[in-house]
């Protein structure tokens, strides 16, 4: 097993990876406090699993995967506040008046947690389907179907200007 990093090495890793992980966590959870908790947990797990991480160069990727997996575990816990999607949407309520469109965070909050994670990983972190599936621990087909469902919802909420009709098919 690889030796754990020195305190200085690990502290440097924490400072270097924190902003990126925090932004992704915030987009996935929509809550600053939860995002902070999530990133802390992911980095602590990364330290504890150093035998699998093996070197500092791979640690940031491992931390991100651990963070996403921890988040999906949170999503599955009973009572998670975003467990259920909003049941009904008003059809194209904002198309004609962009000034009253909800912020993207509000739109993301309408998605079920796993769909939200897929959207963040694919369109914010720019991960391809295969890597997204790997990070979420699910099949590529699941990522594709969740992407399609999520974009359909976002299209209703944000309008076709933001999410064009052909969006899902061209990003891979």
């Amino acid at each position, binding site marked *: 097993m690889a030796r*754990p990093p020195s*305190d200085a090495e*690990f*502290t440097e890793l*924490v*400072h270097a990876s*924190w*902003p990126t992980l*925090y*932004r992704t966590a*915030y*987009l996935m959870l929509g809550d*600053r406090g939860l995002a*902070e908790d999530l*990133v*802390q*947990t992911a*980095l*602590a*797990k*990364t*330290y*504890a*699993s*150093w035998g*699998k991480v093996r070197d500092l160069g791979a640690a940031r990727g*491992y931390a991100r*995967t*651990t963070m*996403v*997996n921890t988040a*999906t*575990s949170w999503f*599955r*816990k009973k009572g998670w506040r975003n467990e259920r999607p909003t049941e009904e949407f008003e059809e194209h309520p904002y198309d004609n008046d962009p000034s009253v469109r909800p*912020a*993207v*965070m509000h739109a*993301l909050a309408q998605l079920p947690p796993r769909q939200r994670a897929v*959207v*963040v990983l694919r*369109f*914010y972190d*720019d991960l391809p389907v295969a890597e997204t599936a*790997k990070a*979420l*621990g*699910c*099949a590529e087909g*699941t990522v594709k179907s969740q992407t399609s469902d999520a*974009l359909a919802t*976002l299209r209703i909420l*944000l309008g076709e*200007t*933001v*999410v*064009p009709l*052909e*969006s899902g098919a061209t*990003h891979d």
Partner: protein
Amino acid sequence: MTDRLATLMHGEVEALDIPAPPATEILGAGRRLHRRRVWTQRGAAAAGLALAAVTAAAVALSGGQSTGAGPATGKPPHVIAYAVDDTVYISDGTGATAVTMPEVAQTLYYTSAGVLVRTNKDGSSDGGAPFHFELVKPGGTAAKLALTLGDVVPSTDPSLPYLAYAAKGGGPLFQAVVHDISTDRTEAAIDIAGKFTWGGWEAPPVSLSGADVYVGTDDKTEVIDWQTGQTTTSDVVPGSALPDVEGGRLLRAGTGSTDVVDAQSGRVLLAISGAKEDGADLSPDGRFAIVRAGDGSVIYNVDTGAKVHVPSSDWGWSSDSEDVFRVDGSTMTTCSTSTGQCQDTSVPSVGKGAFVRYAGVTFES
């Protein structure tokens, strides 16, 4: 075509006031997690070093082949647990505390949070669902978990507070679930890629060893790192079979022998000549192998190849694998797995025809 969506998300988070990372707290939490996982690995490693000098001689005595790799997990506190019908007995070797269960105790699992008891209506393992779970803590108090399982094969690692099992997911896939029994919450639920049609259970059988959940799917065993969700296919653990990995080790039939094998590398750690695989078992931490031989048993130290003989062929394990034990009437016999020395202790009498289950032993069918 989603450039605008990506731009909006970037815009949202670029404007965030990001707090400073609490690096010291993260480092402390990481250290605590690390210690919990490796437990007393340093102690085990030290013991391994001390024993390394006598390995060659021990191998000669055992008729086996030892390569001396350390176990994947350390050892939890010393506890002996067994059940008689709906009563669980917890012992430190000098007596036994009785704890009544709401149902018959079907299997007892050692964990770092206490003894986890799987119960059901009659103790049967075949068609015995639904199964419920009680956590018996070291002080002898029991708490019911909010967990009901069907006809599946769950697993624990004695150095961790988790129960792993597989279950039907929302779609066509199964999921490997890791449940934290100390908090009674699901810690992870990860899709299993492979199919499962063999075995007759509701979901593929699993084995928890450290951070890995081994899942016995059709023709292959998947190894899931439940913290990251990353899945690999094992080159060592056979598929379409119950993956019984203890402390990162498993038993495998060799040529004229039963071999103890490292579950990750496939390296043979100990070859036990003449032993049949179905007559052998590993200790909960994988440090010892017991082989039934006639009316008695032989216990091998996997790391050194040293062996001791104990009477009887029917044994349970202590939580730290330091002892095997059995109960006959009102006597509990414990034997050291290192020296073979045995001692008797008086315990509440077990009547004839009672349903007895020893901890550390698998009861699945």
